[in-house]
């Protein structure tokens, strides 16, 4: 499978990719994007199977990205990896079509719990 990791922080993108490997998901191709706008272009170009996106980013936020995808009929699997995990945000994410919200700081176990239903 192909995964798209979206975060404006290069350091955090690298940590997410490393944590994916530690969680046992090391056989998947990973593509990176720096914000929602870049993610839309990378989704067009690479057709990933799952998007792991930060919420708070310049240019286009994660929730704007998700709403843009769903608004154009794209039902790609989508989860947030974000520093904010309030009940309100989880509800907003779920209502917009996100499968899960992983809150930073995270652990490989947290990744496995969230990704297992999607990636197996």
């Amino acid at each position: 499978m192909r995964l798209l990791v979206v975060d404006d922080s290069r350091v955090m993108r690298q940590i997410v990719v490393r944590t994916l490997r530690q969680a046992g998901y090391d056989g998947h191709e990973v593509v990176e994007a720096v914000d929602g706008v870049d993610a839309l272009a990378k989704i067009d170009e690479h057709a990933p199977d799952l998007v792991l996106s930060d919420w708070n980013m310049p240019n286009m936020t994660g929730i704007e990205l998700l709403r843009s995808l769903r608004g154009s009929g794209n039902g790609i699997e989508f989860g947030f990896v974000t520093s904010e995990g309030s009940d309100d945000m989880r509800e907003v994410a779920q209502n917009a079509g996100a499968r899960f919200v992983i809150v930073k700081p995270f652990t490989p176990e947290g990744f496995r719990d969230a990704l297992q239903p999607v990636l197996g």
Partner: protein
Amino acid sequence: MTALAPVVSADAVWEIVVEIWESLLGSPVLRAEHAFGLDDALTAGVALHGGWSGLVTVTCPPAAADALARTMLALDEADAPTSEDVEDALGEVANVLGGNVKALVPGAERLGLPRVGRGLVPAGAVLVCRNGIEWQDHVARVAVWQLVDVTSQDDEKDGGQGS
């Protein structure tokens, strides 16, 4: 500078610090106040806005910021982080701190993007709580500030100094 009645306690913020250092840095931390020079210290901060407005900051000497970046990027001994990487790493620590503090503060509705530099704390900010951090051979401070005079947000002064 007088601390306000805390909307979030230093103990609660410390629990977040411990989690972040363990998760992002793979390192235990000690709660300890150490003096360090603020002239060349780096501060990363994220703003919280809404019914309650404030800042969450992490301030440390340049060597500690380098160490954060080196660990977060899993660099080899021979590789030095770029200044962009150092600012990115410190900003991301502030971002994660800010997101978790936001969940504890009633009225904090929106999280800003991280900013990194020297002197990020506005003149209208009053210290809410602060923790000193020691890990390996490095030190840092994490602080929560309340903006009590939003008209002076652009009037910046040195970050990291508290009561």
